[in-house]
């Protein structure tokens, strides 16, 4: 039987097993860390950015290299 294309998602895209596990791990890590009383800085500053389909991304963002075009960092 011919498989039909899944409908356009109405909410978040269906999570993969990997993303669910990473999400749980990330949430657990966030909850384990003490909440600062006031804003005290950011997690992983990085000076280099690149432009991908209009998105200004970090150099270490997990985007396939094929999607990269141009650099936004200066």
């Amino acid at each position, binding site marked *: 039987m011919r498989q039909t294309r899944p409908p*356009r*998602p*109405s*909410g*978040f*895209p269906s*999570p*993969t097993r*990997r*993303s669910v596990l*990473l*999400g749980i*791990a*990330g*949430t657990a890590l*966030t909850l384990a860390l003490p*909440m*600062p*009383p*006031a*804003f005290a*800085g*950011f*997690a*992983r*500053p*990085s*000076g280099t*950015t690149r*432009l*991908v*389909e*209009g*998105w*200004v*991304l*970090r150099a270490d*963002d*997990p*985007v*396939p290299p*094929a*999607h990269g075009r141009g650099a*936004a*960092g200066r």
Partner: protein
Amino acid sequence: MIVPLTSAFTPRSHYDVCIVGAGPAGIALALALAARGRSVFLAEGGDREFTGRSQDCYEGTVVGDPYFPLGSARMRFLGGTSNHWGGWCRTLDRHDFLPKAACERAQWPIRLDDLAPYEAESRRVLEITAPKPDSMLPGSTTLKQVYFSQSPPTRFGTRYAADLERAEGIDLCLNCNFTGLRTGDETIRAAVFRNYDRVERVVAASAFVLACGCLESIRFLLHENRRLNGGLGNQGGAVGRYWMEHPTFGLGEFFLYPNFLGGGPFDNADLDPHGSVNRRWFVAPTSDFMTRTSILNCGVRLEPVMRDDLHRFVADLVCGSPGVLQPLLAGLGKDVRCAGHLHAAWEEEPKAENRVTLDTGTDAFGIPRIVLHWTKSALDRRTPREMALAVARYFAQQDLGRVRLLPWLLDDSQPWPTDDELAGYHHMGGTRMAARPADGVVDADCRVFGTPNLFIAGSSVFPAGGHANPTQTIVQLALRLADHLHDTLSTPVSTAEPASDASR
């Protein structure tokens, strides 16, 4: 008192100040002068409420970039354009008054300190509190978070009608349309007004102020220059020129990761979802960044999508660029708690070609309608692009979230969007303030060059617009002008005079 212009109305034989236009500038100026004991004739071309016959005087033509119909971009009845004002208030920045690397012409002959003494009183007039002070974004040396105050908004006609009625020194005349000046010895002796039934009155005063809104003040000055063979502030040919708006467009979308909500610079808890102004965050450049990138001032708005629509909005973003966002969100294992649109309103380059001219058609009083020539420049596109890139890099570098910029912003070969906000309904320039007649129309005291007793109040005197909404600056300038007029009028404070036929 408030009285319609009819055959039964007779003005006093002489007023200290005659003000044309009862909007925010005219009303603030009249009340401030009356509080010092000055007599004021305040002319409003419209009625207490909207009428089509009055509004028709505002019809005009736009040439160039897409813009709003001139007949609906402002209001012509008591209270003026405050009648459809959104209530956003912010004073200009200190660097807005100074020359810019990107455009030396974008400067004032006065400084922020000249207007600062009127800030508290302008807040009282506009019924606002002081905003939070601007602050640098954490970890940034180029961007600052800025704040606006929210007026109720004050509808000047209704809010101050009782004060105008009570003020002994003020004669506020409705349906009282300015049709011309009478001159003598390089000064203005009188102004002529007419109602819709051709009843005419001549008003004599020591000083005259055009306070009828940016485009209307320009129109009257252009017409008077044509009628009187020039000389009214047009020595440098600047009357009508250097007109400006705040170009206002969507720049892209953003999302924020959850771990920075709560105590961070972009905290949902700081927003008022029911307000019109403070349900957004605002970011602006430092003066150093403006100099380094050769841009003008720019206010970037981060407008979060409300919680109920958040998942659908993010899903649409993911569907729009799945190759980027799916691995980004899944790989980082991060939830998105806030997402929204990136907009900006920015300072436009003052250009001589952006101008108001007189058309061949006339209004009901025989005064030519206007043609507005408005085109945005390369600098007008570079300013939002450099700012949007700076904001987007900040989000990424600090791992705060990510920003997507729209194609037109990154590619100069693409046309400006035509289905966007376009502009802020902020009319500025055209009778710009300058240090010398060759560069502008009015001096630092808002006095028309070459005419000692003719002044202009309102945003047409702005030689540079910054990114802030103009109303608070308009009121500050009007209050400052009230001080100047009171201090320099040669006549002593006058008492109310009996009506006289002499001025008919």
